[in-house]
């Protein structure tokens, strides 16, 4: 274990460059609140504009922005992670959509329907648009920038911290799941092969994962307390994300967009 880095860093009274770093690229350099506002508009559009145009338009915009901000690959990975949920939505709607009477075929007592398939695909597209909008905001916004921006606006940072830290903990949780799985394998648990064996292998994983996470939560809470997380007064911000004119314009446009979509929906001009 080496403690030396390839390039020794000079200590000094000012913040190092890697702390005052500025994000590169247009979308990444937007204020976190702007990216959240855009994400809200995208979610509202995906769920409120009827038919395929809502989720289709949003997904198209997301793909373009993700490609421009070099997060397309990560976004696709997150999309794949949502596949089990998408599949379950499809299956449930395909077979159980209330009122659907246009069967594709009959499989014993089951009758998948065209309307069910159509509705399931559309719901899945909306869900994908929703998760991608949130994921894109997350992928292009460091948690500490979000925290700093919330602190500057005088908003409660506890909630943001909990969500942000929880997301950052995902790799550690995956690592621990692997460790527990290896331990179970070493004790003879068969977790390879057919799908039902894999599912059965998840059962002994659950308890250590849940209890381990609960005990970590208490220790993490105490560690945070010992670092003054609940100290009163304003926190010092090492780096404040810029809030430029373009940010304010985009936020107003996003808010106007949400209001316009809601108004069109209420007046029946769409949907």
């Amino acid at each position, binding site marked *: *274990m080496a*403690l*030396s*880095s390839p390039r*020794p*860093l000079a*200590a*000094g*009274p*000012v*913040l*190092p460059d*890697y*702390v005052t770093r500025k994000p590169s690229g247009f979308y990444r350099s937007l204020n976190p609140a702007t990216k959240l506002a855009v994400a809200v508009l995208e979610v509202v559009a995906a769920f409120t504009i009827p038919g395929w145009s809502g989720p289709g338009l949003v997904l198209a915009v997301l793909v373009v922005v993700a490609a421009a901000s070099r997060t397309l690959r990560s976004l696709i990975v997150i999309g794949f992670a949502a596949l089990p949920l998408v599949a379950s939505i499809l299956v449930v709607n395909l077979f159980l959509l209330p009122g659907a009477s246009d069967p594709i075929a009959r499989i014993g007592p089951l009758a998948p329907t065209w309307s069910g398939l159509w509705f399931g695909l559309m719901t899945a597209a909306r869900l994908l648009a929703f998760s991608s909008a949130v994921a894109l905001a997350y992928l292009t916004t*460091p*948690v*500490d920038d979000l*925290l700093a921006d919330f602190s500057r606006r005088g908003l409660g940072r506890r909630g943001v*911290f909990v969500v*942000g*830290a929880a997301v*950052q*903990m995902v*790799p*550690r949780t995956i690592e621990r799941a692997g460790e527990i799985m290896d331990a179970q394998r070493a004790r003879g648990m068969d977790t390879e092969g057919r799908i039902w064996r894999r599912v059965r292998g998840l059962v002994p994983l659950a308890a250590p994962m849940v209890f381990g996470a609960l005990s*970590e939560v*208490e*220790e*993490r*809470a*105490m*560690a*945070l*307390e*010992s*670092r*003054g*997380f*609940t*100290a*009163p*007064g*304003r*926190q*010092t*911000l*090492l780096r404040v994300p810029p809030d430029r004119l373009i940010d304010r314009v985009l936020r107003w446009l996003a808010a106007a967009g949400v209001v316009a979509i809601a108004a069109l929906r209420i007046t029946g001009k769409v949907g």
Partner: protein
Amino acid sequence: MAIELASARYRYAGSASAALGPIDLRVEEGRVVGVAGANESGKSTLCLVAAGLAPGVIGGKRDGSVRIDGADAAALKPHELAQRCGILFQHAATQLSHSTATVFEEVAFGPCNLGLRIPEVVERVWAALRAAGVEALAARDPGRLSGGQAQLVALASVLAMRPKYLILDEPTSELDPAGTTLVADALTRVAAETGAGILLIEHKTDVLARIADEVIVLERGAVALSGPAAAVLADPRLSDLGVEPPAAVRLERAVRAAAIEWSAALAEAVR
């Protein structure tokens, strides 16, 4: 000035029996008090009680008194406790905030929570990184450190709060010999340079032999042995209390058992 426990007894919430005490203990500034004991002997509970986190943060019931520089620990708010008494737990992963992009920002997390001005934050961070011997890691991602490095960064994070007392709960328990040496070196340096009073819970008695001025051994929540480190760690009752003596002590016993003369020069060479 000291952390003083007088007839302190603690019972966890929902438990019928006391996990600790009654116990008397004094940790003065500039002194290192080591604590050893078998599993379930109350070592970690002692940490939480001495740091004022039990019952302050985790609940439960405490009798007797715990005073930090004369102030009742129960009357101090968590952020006030944090500046008097820093605590480091066993698992490095639970110590870090998981909300920062660099080690520098991770160490600055505590001072920033206190609302200190940026020049003071910067000064504290570099001093803490230097004391923990991890200055060269300042630009690294805290999520990508080895176990020993992460524990040292956690130690630096606690040091940046400038506590007068440090409570360390088995900081080397998850580390390999190289990591243990790194942490032990850093603790030796911190004890010598900061003048902080240190309460060090440690299974590895070689570490205690190297750092501690005094050692107490716990058994079922009470003090079974106490005194100068060299005397306690050479006490023949140590093994009966579930604590393995340091390698030097075991070697001396083996040499004497083999009827080989144990000289001062040999003892020095072993050290």
